[in-house]
């Protein structure tokens, strides 16, 4: 029996097509393979011409690469989506309440729900944020939660991504590409539109403007510059929102406000959607060598004269050690049970757990507490003896740096190959906007797909691809 057969296939198996995919499968059955091949090439040319690339740095030269796009959509029914969004909303509200609490009264620590050292020894915790409430009370203006599915009703949150989640441009561009390639599909099948996202993002950011904003709040996107791997997304979002794309050296503090250098002098910015990490935000407060930030912006921020999205210090809510407490955090702030499940997580900082992880290393996935992008992790079932032994040494040397999770049997969605459809593992990153008006989730998201058969690593930095994500209307 093929190992793949054990996984939940979202399209269906053994000739029985799951309901959300019925209409699509019907259409697909009438398509010619050569025709689809041609479309796949067209899509690649389209991405290249549009410059939808990310930068990769080798020793010698910067190279622009494409994230592979697969033309088979990932389809979610409206009912499934409703459940997901309810769970996400609950989780995101709890995260914001948690951040406010951590940076103010710290009741959750006093109540003993999570250990104090998890905050005190957390690199992402910023003392500069203590006793301060950001404009509108919002910490995580944009959230991109990673979700995996293992069965008909089994959705798990894998990561909360409350810092500066990326990938939303792919949600939008993948849909544009599909609309161009297969217009007839969208007239047959009712798919919820995601194209309002940039408009909603701008509104949501503007709704968090500080009190000093006069009239229509002025919004800017802060990018590290054209050599950043996600520069395309930064310019895309600024362009789609119709706001300025700024770099640190375009900004300075003028009369207690953050202002950008325009052709007619300095103009105030009210809301800064920053795609620069906390560490580089303000050389006067954080990393003194940073050329990417704005000297003095933290003073302006603490004086309440600019909104920074996401707020500095939100990383304290999304590392993998805090993640393991998320069910308790949700219970503590909402009084409700978590709707979305957490993946069972072993904290290696606890001796018993460490022993369990060492004993079962070959079956587990081990991640760094602050890691991201699929770097520095061990996928037990895919590792050889040597790699397992090396990793065990790392674990013993710095146990609190790691957590471990069971190897999840991620769902599959077929991709198009020259030989026809073939199942591959996927995850899902929906995007939520938070403002004083509430949490708003775009009906779609970024579906990442592991292109190597059997692989569970979907990160684009590790050779993963993307798919368009459809949420059906009925």
């Amino acid at each position, binding site marked *: 029996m093929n190992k793949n057969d054990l996984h939940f296939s979202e399209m269906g198996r053994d000739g029985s097509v799951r309901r959300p995919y019925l209409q699509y499968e019907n259409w697909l059955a009438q398509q010619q393979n050569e025709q689809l091949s041609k479309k796949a090439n067209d899509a690649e040319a389209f991405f290249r011409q549009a410059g939808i690339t990310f930068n990769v740095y080798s020793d010698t030269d910067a190279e622009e690469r494409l994230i592979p796009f697969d033309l088979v959509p990932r389809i979610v029914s409206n009912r499934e989506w409703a459940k997901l969004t309810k769970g996400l909303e609950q989780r995101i509200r709890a995260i914001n309440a948690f951040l406010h609490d951590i940076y103010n009264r710290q009741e959750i620590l006093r109540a003993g729900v999570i250990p104090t050292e998890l905050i005190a020894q957390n690199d992402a915790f910023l003392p500069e944020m203590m006793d301060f409430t950001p404009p509108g009370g919002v910490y995580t203006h944009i959230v991109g939660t990673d979700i995996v599915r293992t069965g008909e009703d089994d959705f798990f949150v894998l990561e909360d991504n409350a810092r500066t989640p990326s990938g939303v441009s792919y949600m939008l561009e993948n849909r544009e590409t599909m609309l161009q390639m297969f217009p007839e599909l969208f007239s047959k099948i009712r798919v919820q539109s995601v194209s309002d996202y940039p408009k909603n993002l701008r509104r949501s950011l503007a709704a968090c403007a500080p009190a000093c904003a006069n009239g229509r709040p002025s919004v800017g996107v802060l990018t590290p510059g054209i050599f950043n791997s996600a520069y395309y997304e930064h310019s895309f979002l600024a362009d789609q929102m119709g706001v300025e794309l700024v770099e640190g050296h375009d900004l300075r503090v003028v009369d207690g406000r953050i202002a950008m250098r*325009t052709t007619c002098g300095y103009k105030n910015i009210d809301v800064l959607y920053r795609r620069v990490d906390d560490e580089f935000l303000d050389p006067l407060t954080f990393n003194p060598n940073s050329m990417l930030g704005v000297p003095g912006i933290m003073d302006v921020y603490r004086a309440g004269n600019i909104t920074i999205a996401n707020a500095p210090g939100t990383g304290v809510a999304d590392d993998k050690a805090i993640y393991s407490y998320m069910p308790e955090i949700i219970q503590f702030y909402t009084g409700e049970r978590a709707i979305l499940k957490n993946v069972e997580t072993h904290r290696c900082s606890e001796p018993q757990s460490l022993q369990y992880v060492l004993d079962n290393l070959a079956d587990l996935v081990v991640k760094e507490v602050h890691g991201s992008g699929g770097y520095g992790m061990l996928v037990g079932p895919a590792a050889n003896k040597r790699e397992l032994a090396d990793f065990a040494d790392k674990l013993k040397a710095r146990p609190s740096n790691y957590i471990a999770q069971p190897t999840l049997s991620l769902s599959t969605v077929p991709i198009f190959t020259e030989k026809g459809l073939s199942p591959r593992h996927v995850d899902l990153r929906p995007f939520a906007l938070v403002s004083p008006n509430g949490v708003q989730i775009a009906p779609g998201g970024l579906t990442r797909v592991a292109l190597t058969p059997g692989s569970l690593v979907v990160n684009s930095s590790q050779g993963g691809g993307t798919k368009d994500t459809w949420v059906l209307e009925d």
Partner: protein
Amino acid sequence: MLGKTAGGLYWMFRSLERAENTARLIEAGFRIALTRSNDTEAEWRSVIATSAVQEMFDEKYQSYDSTNVINFLLCDVANPSSVYSVLKSARDNARLVRTAITTEVWSAINGAWMLLSDRLKKPISETDLPDVLASIRMQSALVRGALYGTMMRNDIFDFCRLGTYIERMNCTARIIDVKYYSLLPSPSFVNSTIDNVQWETVLRSVSAHRAFRWAGDGEYNAPEVATFLILDGRMPRSLTHCSTQIVASLGFLAKEYDTHQPCLGMAEQLRTRFNGRDISTIFEDGLHEFVNSVIADIDKLGYQIEQDYRFNK
């Protein structure tokens, strides 16, 4: 608009114009190499001088043969003025100002970069040269077409045009400067074939040999060619035309921003130097000196525009 964005637009179009001008210069030089092999080296020498890269070239090569010059000007990544380098700069600047240009303009410059960077990766053979040069001009025309067809007529457009015309005016002035001796009326040269070839080459390097035939009576002589390049406002690469366009773009900016910047005054003064002038008075004052001071003024103007509109700080 951000000062940085204004600068990015300006340099994007300066670089693009530069690529096109270099292609024209090579085209004119290559024609001499094919038709008058005796004049080849002198012609390549003046092409290199016009491009202001003589020192760098001399360090690298011993002789001005066609292959050296062509590849130095087209593909050499170490030469910041090579077509490859300026196209890269145009495209990098376009990425920088991606939010200020339409998808069509972005797509045109990105497409130009993808096509030409691939072609210019290897040295260009004489067989491929005409095709590559045509490609450079065509791609540049596509970007310009997208600019004119899809962009709002606002400050963004003005900065693009400023970049184009400052670079173009600079290039035409340099061509005249390097070839000024051939443009001087001298009784001993009249109607000699040498001069005819020189004049034709000069006209070809601004793609105006055809226009020249239609504009006048088709007779080549020094004052007519010089008038055409300097004073004919109908000729899109003449100094008069370029300075008129620069004044117009700066005027639009002044109106749009409701401010009067020093650069507008400077541009108007530069424009006045061609107003109502007759070529004979320019010859009397000294063509070489005249063109030299024009080049200096263009440089100063470019610098002033950067200051006035806060490109850098």
